[in-house]
C-alpha cells in the first residue's frame, strides 16, 4: 500500500500527464495530445543533448564510483588498524546534503579556490585558470568529482560488508595452494563479490541517472547549463521555467524507462555469471 502510494502512483500519474499539454499555472483542463510530447522531445536537440550529457555523467561517475569503492574496500579490509576510522572518514560525505556538498565544491572550483591552487602548484603553472565551472569538459568532470566524493564512501561500506562475508577459509586455502595476492583476488574474492558488485552497480547507476542537485546548483552559480543539462535538470527546466508539465512528465517517463532497462540488463548479465564455491 505504502509502496503503491508513493512509488507506483507518481509514475502512473506522470505517464498519464505525459499524453497531455498543460501549462503548469493554467486552471484550464489539460489538452490530450497523444504522443505529441514524446514526438516533440525526439525532435528536440535539447533532449538529445540531455541524453548525451546524462550518458557521459553516468558512464564516468559509475565507473569511478564502482572501481574506486572496490579498491578502497579492499584497502580498508586489509588494514589491521584504523579500519573503523577509515570507514567513517570515507562515509562522512554521504551524510552531507547534496546541496551543501555542491556549495562546498563551488568554493573549491572557484577560480581563486583550492582546485586551481592545487593543480597549479603540482603542475608548476601559477595563475592558470583551469576553468572548472566554465569549460564544458571541465564542468562535466567537476560534477563527477562532487558525486564521487559524496558517494564513494557509501559504496565502499557495502563492498566491505561483501568482502567480510567471504569465508576466510577460501582465501587462506588459495594462499596455501600458492596463489598470489593478485590471483587470490581475481580467482576467489572478485567472483564471490559478484552479488555485492551487482547491488553496488544497480544502486550506483540509478543514483547517477537521478543526479540533479549538483548540476542545478552549478548552473545557478553561473555555469553554462548545456554541458551539465542532465535529464533531471531538463525535467526541472521544462516544468518550472517553461511551465510545460506534460512535456516534463514525458521526459521523466523516458528517464524511468532507461533506468528500468539498464537495471534489467545488469541483472541479466549478472545472472549468467553466477559463481559458487560451496
Amino acid at each position, binding site marked *: 500500500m505504502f509502496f503503491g502510494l508513493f512509488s507506483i502512483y507518481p509514475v502512473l500519474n506522470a505517464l498519464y500527464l505525459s499524453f497531455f499539454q498543460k501549462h503548469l*499555472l493554467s486552471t484550464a483542463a489539460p489538452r490530450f495530445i497523444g504522443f505529441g510530447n514524446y514526438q516533440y522531445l525526439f525532435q528536440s536537440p535539447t533532449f538529445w543533448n540531455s541524453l548525451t550529457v546524462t550518458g557521459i555523467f553516468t558512464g564516468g561517475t559509475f565507473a569511478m564510483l564502482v572501481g574506486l569503492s572496490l579498491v578502497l574496500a579492499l584497502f580498508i579490509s586489509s588494514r589491521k588498524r584504523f579500519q573503523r576510522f577509515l570507514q567513517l572518514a570515507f562515509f562522512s560525505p554521504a551524510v552531507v546534503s547534496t546541496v551543501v556538498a555542491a556549495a562546498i565544491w563551488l568554493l573549491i572550483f572557484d577560480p581563486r579556490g583550492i582546485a586551481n591552487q592545487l593543480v597549479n602548484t603540482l603542475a608548476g603553472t601559477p595563475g592558470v585558470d583551469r576553468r572548472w*565551472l566554465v569549460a564544458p569538459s571541465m564542468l562535466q568532470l567537476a560534477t563527477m568529482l562532487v558525486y564521487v566524493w559524496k558517494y564513494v564512501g557509501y559504496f565502499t561500506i557495502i563492498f566491505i560488508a561483501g568482502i567480510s562475508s567471504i569465508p576466510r577459509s577460501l582465501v587462506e586455502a588459495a594462499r596455501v595452494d600458492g596463489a598470489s595476492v593478485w590471483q587470490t583476488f581475481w580467482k576467489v574474492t572478485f567472483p564471490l563479490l559478484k552479488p555485492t558488485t551487482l547491488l553496488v552497480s544497480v544502486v550506483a547507476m540509478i543514483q547517477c541517472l537521478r543526479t540533479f542537485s549538483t548540476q542545478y546548483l552549478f548552473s545557478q552559480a553561473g555555469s*553554462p547549463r548545456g554541458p551539465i543539462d542532465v535529464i533531471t535538470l531538463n525535467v526541472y527546466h521544462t516544468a518550472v521555467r517553461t511551465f510545460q508539465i506534460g512535456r516534463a512528465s514525458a521526459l521523466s517517463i523516458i528517464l524511468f524507462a532507461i533506468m528500468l532497462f539498464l537495471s534489467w540488463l545488469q541483472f541479466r548479465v549478472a545472472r549468467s555469471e553466477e559463481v559458487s564455491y560451496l
Partner: protein
Amino acid sequence: MKRAAWFLVMLLALGLVATAANPVKITFWTHEDPNRTPLEEEYIRRFQALYPHVTIERVTYPSARIAEVLLTAFAAGKGPDMFNLEVNDAYPYLVMGRVAPLRPEWVGYASVDSILGAYLGGTLDPVYRDGKLYGLPLELTIWSVFVNEKYLREVGLDPDTDYPHTWEQMMEVSEKLVIREGDIIKRRGFDFRYGYYVEWLLAMVEQLGGAFLSPDGQTAVIGDEAWLQVLRYMQQWGPLGKNLGSPTYTPARNLFNYDRNEVTMCLTGFYQIARIRTQNPAFYESGEWMVIPFPVFENAVNDVASHYYGHYYMVNAQSSLETQEWTWRFIAYMLSNPEEYLTRVGLIQPRKDLLASDVYAAQPYGDVFASDMARSSLVQLHVANPEFKQLLDEAVKAVMLQGVTPEAALATLRTKANEVLAEYK
C-alpha cells in the same frame, strides 16, 4: 498634509468596514530582505492590533527560490493568499487567472483610475488588465552603476570626470582597474548582473535599435546588428576575451558593500544604498562611493537606461472573497507608508507624491536614479518571459564561456525564442 489626510481617510475606511467578522488568516510569502522584514513585521503587528480577527503569517524564501516555490504551490492549488514576485515572473500568474483584482474601496480609493493617477505613468501597466488592477507595487527601481571612488583614484582616474559614460569607456576603465594573477581575477573593474538579462541586456540592445520582441509580440529577436554588437561586447568581456568578468564569479553587487578591493563597480538598484548602510556603515559614511547613470553605446540610437525592475504585491484568486478583501486591505495598509519603505529599506514605490517629496529628494543619488528612471521603461511583457530569460542566459554564456560565435548564438536564440512564441500563438 495632503498625504496625511489621505492616510487618515484610508484608516477611517478600514475602520468602518472592520467588523466582528469570522477569523481571517492571511498567508504572506515574500523574498528575503533583511531590511524589509522588521518593517513589515511591525506593520503586521499594528494591523492585527487594529483588526484582531485577522492573523497574518509572513514566510520568507531566498530570492532565487521564491519563484519556483510559488509555482509548485500554485500548481498544487496551495498558493499563499498574498505574495510578491519580480514582474516578469508575476505576469504569467495574471494571464493565467491566478490572481484576484482589487476593489478600489478596499484600498482607500474611489476608482481604479484614481489609483492609476496616484502612481507614475505606466508603472501599473503590468498589473492592469481589462479595467482591473491585479497588483500594487512593492518596489520599482532601475539599475544604475555603483562605483567605489577609491579604486578609481588608485589607477589615476578622477571619479568626478573619468567615470564611464559609455559601454566602450566601461571596458577601457575596467581594463585599467582589473587586477589579475595570471588568468585569475583578483579585482574586477565592473561586472554585469548575470541572470537578470531582461533588465540590462535588452536595454543595451534597444540602445542600438534592436529589440527582443516585435511591437505586436509575434516575432522574437529584432535588429541583428544591434544583437551582434551586444553579444560581441559580452564575448570580449568574458574569460575568452579581455577577461574582465564572468557569470561564475561571485555577483559583483554582493561584494561591493564590503569594500575589500574585489570589485570597483556593479550594476544594482536603489536598495543597495540601504544595504551598504546596514552591512558596512563605515563605507557608507566614508563618502567613497557614488552612483552613475546606466551607460550607453557610443553609436546608440536610443538613449535608454536599464528596464524597470519591479515587484508587485498580488492576491491569490483561489482565496475566499473575504480573505481577498482583508489581504488587499493589509497590502494597502503596508503601502500607505512609502516613505518608511524608502528610508528604511531603500525601496522606491513609484507614487507621484513620494517622488515629489522632500524625503525622496534628500536621498543620496536619488537624482541619478530619477533621471535614469525618466529614460527607462517597462520591458515588453509576455507570458513566456521566464523562459525568454533562460534563452538570453544561454546566449550570453555561449559567447562568454563556451566559445560560440555571436552569430551562432544569435541564430540559436532566434530559433528557440520563435519556437516558444509559436507555442503561445
